[in-house]
């Protein structure tokens, strides 16, 4: 099922922005807020894992029911999980389409990757304090 991905700030994301290797940050940045009716149609339970796929990449997140969301739209706070499926095309403005990426969503049995694994998949290496 196709959705429009919107991104933005949340206070939990902001509170943990300097603790990006924390579990709380990972949980918040990988939370995909969806309209409960859309979740029901897709047979996705609350806090179940989902695969979010666009033309530019795919990443596992977890679904959060949110009655503030319109049908067909999903919200993920700004961060590495949302950016995993956003194109780097800027249409000559310097700004990617961070609020208007089309994604397909389906239930998934895969686990949500911690931040370091996400960065390793892009060529980085984990650092442990």
């Amino acid at each position, binding site marked *: 099922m196709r959705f429009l991905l919107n991104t*933005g700030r949340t206070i939990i994301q*902001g509170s943990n922005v300097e603790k990006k290797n924390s579990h709380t940050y990972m949980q918040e940045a990988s939370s995909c807020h969806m309209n409960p009716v859309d979740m029901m149609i897709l047979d996705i339970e609350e806090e179940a894992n989902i695969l979010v796929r666009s033309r530019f990449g795919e990443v596992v997140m977890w679904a959060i029911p949110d009655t503030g969301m319109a049908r067909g739209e999903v919200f993920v706070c700004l961060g590495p999980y949302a950016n995993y499926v956003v194109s*780097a095309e800027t249409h000559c*403005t310097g700004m990617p389409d961070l*609020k208007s990426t089309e994604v397909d969503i389906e239930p998934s049995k895969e686990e949500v990757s911690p931040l370091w694994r996400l960065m390793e998949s892009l060529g980085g290496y984990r650092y442990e304090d």
Partner: protein
Amino acid sequence: MRIEDVVCSFCGCLCDDLVVEVEGKKVLNVENGCKLANEKFMGNSRLKSPIKRVGTKWSEIGLEEAIETTAQVLLDADRPLLYGWSGTHGEAQSIGVHIAELLGAVIDNTSTVCHGPSILAIQEVGHPGCTLGQVKNRADVIIYWGANPIEAHPRHMSRYTTYADGFFLKDAFRERKVIVVDIRKTETANIADEFIRIEPGGDYAILSALRAIVRGKGDIVPRSVAGVEKEQLVRVAEICKSAKFGAIFFGLGLTMSRGKNKNVRNAIELTEELNRHTKFTISPMRGHWNVYGSNEVFTWISGYPFAVDFARGIAFYNPGETTSVDILRRGECDACLVVASDPGAHFPAECSRHLASIPTIQIDPHINATTYLSHLQIPVAVTGIDAEGTAYRMDGIPIRTRKVFQSNYPSDTEVLEKIYQIIRREIGP
């Protein structure tokens, strides 16, 4: 020790009324701060010493070696990119621009993925803005458009708008009308007097419709525009026209949605239209605490607010070409210095992939997504906690941040000054 009037270096509000209790090198308590401020001051997740990666192995190194390596990587690069800057003080930003000029590098700040499009619009049609003090004391109509201050700027409403009594508004909560325009029902929308819920990408059409109604051409507006009933738009236009003083605050809902800079231009032109009837202003809700400062500092040195390319020996500015996301997408830069920012978390994955493939060096107090993409990281003091310097509030007011304790970390200025001196020595006069 109890320190009063401490400036919070988190968001563009730069609240300057915090009371911080300090013991040695630890903040024990923060009063007056929002959740973001409390977490910032009370946080203890600093990187302890400079780290360097060779292959897959990370190891700690000395500060002087880290600084020397950074300078050498930048000197060896053909097209270095210096990115970030919004999370540090103006004095450090200034050294950054001078390093870029010496190297013939591109220097860009985080505006590129926040209010860069707003700057493009302002360069086209100007900025009818004002200080937050004016809003607090005078504005009886507030519009938040594509912005969610409850989550992103938690004290904006209590210090300057909805809940802040002002000189001409003795009972702000009752006397001010708050209008929220968004595509989703946010916490901010929940407390609005009027919530305009628009379809995604509908901002430009709604702004155009409002301009037409304010201009007296409402008869050409269809019954519904981008999911909003004409009746509501007429009602909102009337609220705006009958305001004594109106203030529009807009967020990334305008700059990141379809239309981007053209959305902002249309919003500025709506403001201009409203000024034919009453006093109206418009201002961006700046995110990083000193992103406005990075635009100021870049402009007074190079003439341009972000995305400045010195490769030609003079400052060149062409957003879409000299902006970081575009340079990384094209795989153009062969080294990157990241200062006080986290592009690994906030750039599209394709850009992060390129950052991981080149020598990327980060100057930042904390471990973040960019750490994993980097080859070297130098931890520094946090401005507003153990470093001080000048910052610009979201309305362009310079505020001096304070140091609440002395730590062993060097400041951004100290590290960058040393890098500058090495590069200058190598390149020559």
